[in-house]
């Protein structure tokens, strides 16, 4: 048995039956981390000793096992973990140890996960390749010369490389789905409000949402059960109205799926389109009723997003001022200089670019032309989705316009980099749930298939995604796991 190929649900079964202990499972992942993470760089911090300690303690527990007992979990470094360095991949928070744990992480910990460590990301979740990390890029386990996507590139790469059984990511404009697509794993962005943001270091508050990155849809459904919930500490969170039922084996008979025509045209790589079209045929064969849907204003989604998200970010990142925690520049004469030096030294290029974009968009005299207009676009896109989802149960598109691109390929051109999120960003503007599942390979690299649902219907979305996953029959894993086929117990 190759422990690294077990899904979370399979591993739980083995641990329950006693064929594998939590410590053995944890050790398998820690060993994979020590053999491969020097190349992949999925982790910013590995808490190996603590993880082994937790696993051993779980094994020693008498009585009924907690629901997620012993699952070796990677946590994106954007989530606060009490006493464990949380950097957001920024120099600004190089040695920052939070004094509390994010609600969603705490809920998972209460279900007895084992924390393997904190994963790499684009600094403050701003980016689509994990190259914006102050601590160096993460590499794609399928091809170490390529990026894993971003911003949750560390989490996606960790799962794809067998360095975690599953991982937590966060998605502001595609930061869970796009790296999941690039790394050939499953990534779910829940409906805005269904997972507490308390303890998630904010990038753009009205877009940010925490979600699972897993090996398959069932694992995502399982993790969601422990992520959702109304949190009294997050007023934008709500009790998820639909019960988080686990998907069952079922075909797609009668499910109406609309291909978003604006997201399959120009700008989508032909290889990606081939895999996408094949996948659509498989869905048809499974009974899905496929038609064409339209989001007429989706052309304006990217520009609107790059006004609104940086605007919110410009305020959210103001607290990194050197006064109370994190980096403080030395040798300054007054408080203004201290602010300038601290923020100049602490933030990377992309973060500075977005703070400036956002500050400009909110400035007196420009507010109406930028922020105000972008809000109107957002309303129109919400309306577009509403109309399309009146006609269809679900909307579908490729998750990203390309497969994983080469390291350094887009770093000099922010606009090209931003376009990597054209298929995912509209969903964040509307706050809807969406999942990326691997549909096949193009040029040896995974292609993600995006399914978008109605607000707060995540169980239905997961059910359809599970049926689609069965229909696609994608069973490839990255060479880093494949190479370990002979290992295990």
């Amino acid at each position: 048995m190759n422990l690294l190929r077990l899904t979370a649900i399979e591993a739980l079964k083995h641990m329950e039956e006693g064929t594998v202990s939590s410590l053995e499972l944890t050790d398998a992942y820690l060993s994979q981390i020590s053999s491969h993470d020097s190349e992949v760089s999925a982790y910013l911090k590995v808490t190996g000793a603590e993880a082994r300690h937790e696993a051993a303690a779980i094994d020693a527990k008498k009585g009924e096992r907690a629901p997620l007992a012993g699952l070796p979990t990677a946590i994106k470094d954007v989530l606060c973990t009490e006493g464990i360095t949380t950097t957001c991949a920024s120099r600004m928070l190089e040695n920052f140890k939070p004094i509390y744990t994010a609600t969603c992480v705490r809920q998972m910990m209460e279900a007895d996960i084992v924390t393997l460590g904190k994963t790499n990301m684009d600094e403050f979740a701003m980016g689509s390749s994990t190259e914006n990390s102050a601590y160096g890029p993460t590499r794609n386990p399928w091809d170490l010369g390529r990026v894993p996507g971003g911003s949750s590139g560390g989490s996606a790469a960790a799962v794809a490389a067998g360095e975690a059984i599953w991982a937590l990511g966060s998605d502001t404009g595609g930061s869970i789905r796009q790296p999941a697509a690039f790394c050939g794993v499953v990534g779910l962005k829940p409906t805005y409000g269904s997972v507490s943001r308390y303890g998630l270091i904010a990038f753009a508050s009205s877009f940010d949402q925490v979600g699972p990155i897993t090996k398959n849809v069932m694992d995502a459904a399982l993790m969601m059960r422990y992520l959702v919930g109304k949190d009294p500490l997050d007023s934008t969170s709500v009790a998820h109205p639909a019960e988080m039922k686990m998907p069952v084996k079922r075909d797609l008979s009668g499910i109406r799926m609309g291909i978003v025509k604006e997201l399959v045209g120009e700008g989508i790589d032909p290889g990606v389109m081939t895999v996408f079209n094949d996948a659509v045929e498989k869905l048809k064969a499974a009974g899905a009723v496929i038609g064409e849907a339209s989001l007429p204003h989706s052309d304006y989604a990217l520009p609107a997003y790059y006004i609104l998200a940086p605007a919110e970010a410009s305020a959210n990142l103001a607290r990194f001022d050197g006064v109370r925690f994190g980096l403080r520049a030395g040798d300054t004469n007054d408080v203004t200089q201290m602010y300038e030096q601290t923020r100049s030294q602490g933030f990377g290029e992309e973060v500075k670019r977005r703070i400036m974009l956002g500050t400009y968009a909110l400035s007196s005299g420009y507010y109406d032309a930028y922020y105000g207009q972008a809000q109107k676009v957002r309303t129109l896109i919400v309306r577009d989705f509403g109309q399309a989802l009146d006609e269809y149960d679900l909307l579908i598109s490729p998750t990203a316009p390309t497969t994983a691109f080469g390291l350094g390929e887009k770093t000099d051109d922010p606009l090209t980099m931003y376009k990597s999120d054209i298929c995912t960003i509209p969903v964040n503007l509307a706050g809807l749930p969406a999942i990326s599942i691997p549909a096949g390979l193009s040029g040896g690299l995974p292609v993600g298939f995006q399914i978008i649902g109605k607000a707060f219907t995540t169980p239905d979305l997961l059910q359809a995604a599970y049926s689609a996953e069965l229909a696609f029959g994608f069973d490839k894993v990255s060479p880093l796991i494949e190479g370990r086929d002979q290992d295990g117990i």
Partner: protein
Amino acid sequence: MEYEAVIGLEIHVELSTESKMFCGCRVEFGGEPNTRTCPVCLAHPGALPVINGEAIRSIARIGLALDCSIPEKSIFHRKNYFYPDLPKGYQISQFDQPFAVEGHLDVTLENETFRVGIERVHQEEDTAKNIHAGESGRIAGSTYSMIDFNRSGTPLVEIVTKPEIHSPQVARAFLNKLKNTLLYLNVSDCNMEEGSLRCDANVSIRPVGETTLGVKTELKNMNSFKYIEKGLQQEIARQVELLKDGKRIVQQTVHYDVASGDISALRSKEEAHDYRYFPEPDLVPILASREFVEEIRANMPELPHARAQRYISGFGLSAYNAEVITASRELADYFEETIAHLDDAKTVSNWIMGELLGYLNATGQELSECKVTPEELAVLLGMIKSGQVSQNIGKDVFAQMCDTGSKAADIVATKGLTQISDETELEVLADRVIDANPAQVQQYRAGKQQVLGFFVGQIMKETKGRANPQVVNEILKKKLTG
């Protein structure tokens, strides 16, 4: 040319809720620095604000007391600027959709009533407190600064008047009335020394008859209503002087030096901040449903005007007395407690107006410092009513009670101040003074009635004021004519 002043006021009120505006930390003045803090009010990464429902109930009471309309939906905005006492780098405040709008408060000054319009009442949060090391306690010349976050996130309500006040006296009267109203509402302790009530004043002048506003200056953070009045007087005089000299008024913040009475410029508004307001995405809108507003209205505490009406119609107080007594909630409470022990509202109100307020004025004391409890005042007034002590002696006794805190009965007993009403005793005294002053007797009998006062005075002198004046009068009249 005659000029008219135009004054608008901005008042910040710290609410006395149990907990802070957006977190569970306790609200309290002072204390060991940085002991009432949490990730939210320290703005640690990932922390989120949650609205304090009690603060919303308080601002609703304020809005209703100022006759504002309360829109069904109001929202919070972020007001962005960098300063060490502002941990998030933005203040959560309200901008174009405030909690309450378009109200007014009427103030009476020398029998004239002025209606002051209220532009808006909005909810926000207070900053932390910077403490500068060094002798002056000011930032200039200090070697380092410290920050106490205990105050960070305290609920703060901002009340903005329309520029409809035309004299410093009315501004002061408005502030007094507003403070009293807030105390009646029980939403803030309004302690100006501790900063729970702060006021900025905007002032401009224009020729009488002109309707457009002149260039305004701002007097900031004045720490007493008296100095706001004086500062405004000075600033108006300065502006008039400038215009008369053909000079220009510059929009700026000015400082009124309490000691010297001088006005100086602090900073020019031309380098004003761009606060880049935008809707706070971490919070949901405040929805003030009709039911909510009606529920608050139904449970409003009695306000000064209603209380005064009750005193006039229920207790027969004069309009003037009723207004003076209800002008302070504390004084009105004192009045009501006294009449709970002595059912004679008119006497009690006269004593409060005359003796109590007179004593407080003369000594500069606050009512809260007064040593005479309402119950003790009632006992004293009871003694006067029953004739145990005379009215005049009673006043002396009251002054001693105020000075020493002793009980009325003890003072009267130890000093032997009981009134003499016994006729036999007083007749003996009357005979004695009549015999001793034949010349005055003759004058009286010749028709000079006012000489009676001389004899009364003599008897009072003999008895050290303890003789019952009415009885003395009657005896003397009888004996002198008889």
